[in-house]
């Protein structure tokens, strides 16, 4: 139950590695915010700094407008869930969940009542007498979640909590985490490298790369209106296709001599820049494959991956490799020559600095 604010937070390791670079971020009260990025992008460092487990070099962290960055971890009132569970091996599941309450010296009867209630919510009353070594991975993380939930902290910090679990358990537990978070209304920062997971549970997603915040927004914001090539490539599966383009005119472009129709906002953005090294970005869903046409962008199918109702088709074109998603019944055969067409209003253009030209407008 806190609004958390990072103001110009930077963290540089002694060896010069910059884990976090000038981070400005507000996490609203009761919000579930995902930190998304590849490993080493600074997302874990960010919540470890917030929890007080690591120091940082510059900036300040506020909770409800009070500075908390000088407080020791035990005074920050945050509960954390760890990727590798980090349960107390010498204690039973019950005692593990009770530990935060014992630290606060609550009376034994209240501890018992609260732990029992949490065990009920997580449907694991029957496991309460077991030590962690006798719990499965999913059960261990349930205990980890219970330990975080039991004391109703100001914020939840979850560091890839489902990373070690099997796929079906991940889906099940993430729904559970979201439900509990909504019910309790506790500000939550959730670190993950899995965009599907982030899309499934987050109110807003922060994409980080190389210690820098790239973009904040809902999954659709990131998907439809990426601000730069990194976000465009990282968000969306399979990743966006990038093709180099030539400028044929002030407001028109071509790929390998084939003129590409583009939307009016994109035209306007194009007119506003002199940049000549532009890159075109197309989502695999926005391609359609047809019979080859002369003076058109054609390519050879190199790989077809059937996925059930759709298939992922890799096409080699004169401009570079492309990926298209097509309905299963219309998938081409490997080796076939196909013509690529795409919807002009769903294209993305990136300048030579990898920034999106149609930031915040084009796309969807």
């Amino acid at each position: 139950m806190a609004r958390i604010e990072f103001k110009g937070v930077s963290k540089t390791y002694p060896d010069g590695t910059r884990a976090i670079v000038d981070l400005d971020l507000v996490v609203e009260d009761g919000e579930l915010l995902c930190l998304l990025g590849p490993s080493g992008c600074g997302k874990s460092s960010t919540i470890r700094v917030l929890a007080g487990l690591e120091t940082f070099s510059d900036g300040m962290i506020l909770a409800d407008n009070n500075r908390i960055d000088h407080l020791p971890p035990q005074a920050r009132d945050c509960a954390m869930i760890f990727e590798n569970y980090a349960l107390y091996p010498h204690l039973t599941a019950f005692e593990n969940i009770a530990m935060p309450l014992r630290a606060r010296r609550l009376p034994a009867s209240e501890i018992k009542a609260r732990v029992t209630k949490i065990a009920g919510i997580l449907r694991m009353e029957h496991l309460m007498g077991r030590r962690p070594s006798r719990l499965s991975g999913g059960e261990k993380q349930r205990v980890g979640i219970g330990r975080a939930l039991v004391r109703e902290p100001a914020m939840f910090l979850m560091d890839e909590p489902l990373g070690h679990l099997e796929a079906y358990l991940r889906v099940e537990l993430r729904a559970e985490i979201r439900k509990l978070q909504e019910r309790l209304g506790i500000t939550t920062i959730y670190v993950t490298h899995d965009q599907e997971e982030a899309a499934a549970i987050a109110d807003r997603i922060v994409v980080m790369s190389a210690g820098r915040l790239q973009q904040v927004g809902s999954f659709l914001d990131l998907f439809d209106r990426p601000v730069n090539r990194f976000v465009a490539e990282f968000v969306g599966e399979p990743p966006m296709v990038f093709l180099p383009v030539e400028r044929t005119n002030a407001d028109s472009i071509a790929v390998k001599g084939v003129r590409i129709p583009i939307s009016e906002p994109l035209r306007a953005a194009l007119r506003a820049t002199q940049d000549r090294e532009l890159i075109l970005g197309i989502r695999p869903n926005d391609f359609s494959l047809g019979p080859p046409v002369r003076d058109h962008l054609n390519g050879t199918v190199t790989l077809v991956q059937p996925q059930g109702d759709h298939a992922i088709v890799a096409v080699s074109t004169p401009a570079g490799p492309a990926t298209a998603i097509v309905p299963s019944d219309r998938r081409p055969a490997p080796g076939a020559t196909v013509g690529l067409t795409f919807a002009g209003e769903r294209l993305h253009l990136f300048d030579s600095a990898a920034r999106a030209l149609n930031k915040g407008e084009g796309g969807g």
Partner: protein
Amino acid sequence: MTVGLVRSKDLKAGVRRSAAAWPIGTLRYLVAAIFTGFCLFPFYVIVTTALKTETAIFAWPPVWNFKPTLQSFYNALFVFGGRSAIFYLINSVIISAVSTFVAVVLGAMAAYGFARFSFAGKRHLAFWILSTRFAPPVAFIVPIYLMVQKAGMLDSHIALILIYTAMNLSLVIWILRGFFSEIPIEIEEAALVDGYSRLQIFWRVALPLVRPGIVSTAILSAIFSWNEFLYAMVLTQSKAATLPVYLAGFSNSMGLAWGEYMAVGTMAVLPILIFTFALQKHLVRGLTFGAVK
């Protein structure tokens, strides 16, 4: 057909393999048995001598099959003049127990500090602690004697307790440091965010997790204190003398009362044996196993 052929081949290979393994396995047991016998034989002689009558002790050829008697134990404890063996046994227990306890408690705290905190000169300090054991103890006997004498602590329990604690500390610190380092750091981080202070984490989380290390260092420390002879001999006379000192003086004062001598020897082994067996079940490895993936 083919299947049958393959099977019979497999069978033959299996037979050959086990035929080759047989003498090696037996040899291994034989070597182990001989070594065990070699180690235990003196102990066997001590215990049987203590249980024999005086005639049986000096009989030649040795009597293997004899009727055990507790007469020697009775004599050593209740008949012999001067202070009884029990007095020295109690001294040994007090000095060993206190020095072991203090060394393990202080050593565990120091080891935790070495394992979890970084501070200036950490490596040098750790090396210095280990280096206190480099020289043979006899090298320090004169300065330590003078220090103890000046402090008026000759023939006192506290002098031996302090010296044994100091000697055991380096061992405890170095062994426990490794145990503490093996605790996944996330467990302690979890305790930090759960609201515990560093000191609370040490007592409530870290210490229970290194229990096997605590037990093994306690056993090693206790054995060292129990058996230490040189310093006890030089620094004590009677009031604080330990069992090894008493044993060494045994033959002088009593002539060569072999039965009683060996009876005291047997009693000297028993407490440490009981202590070790009692703690052995805590020496299980892998207590932290399953805490983190």
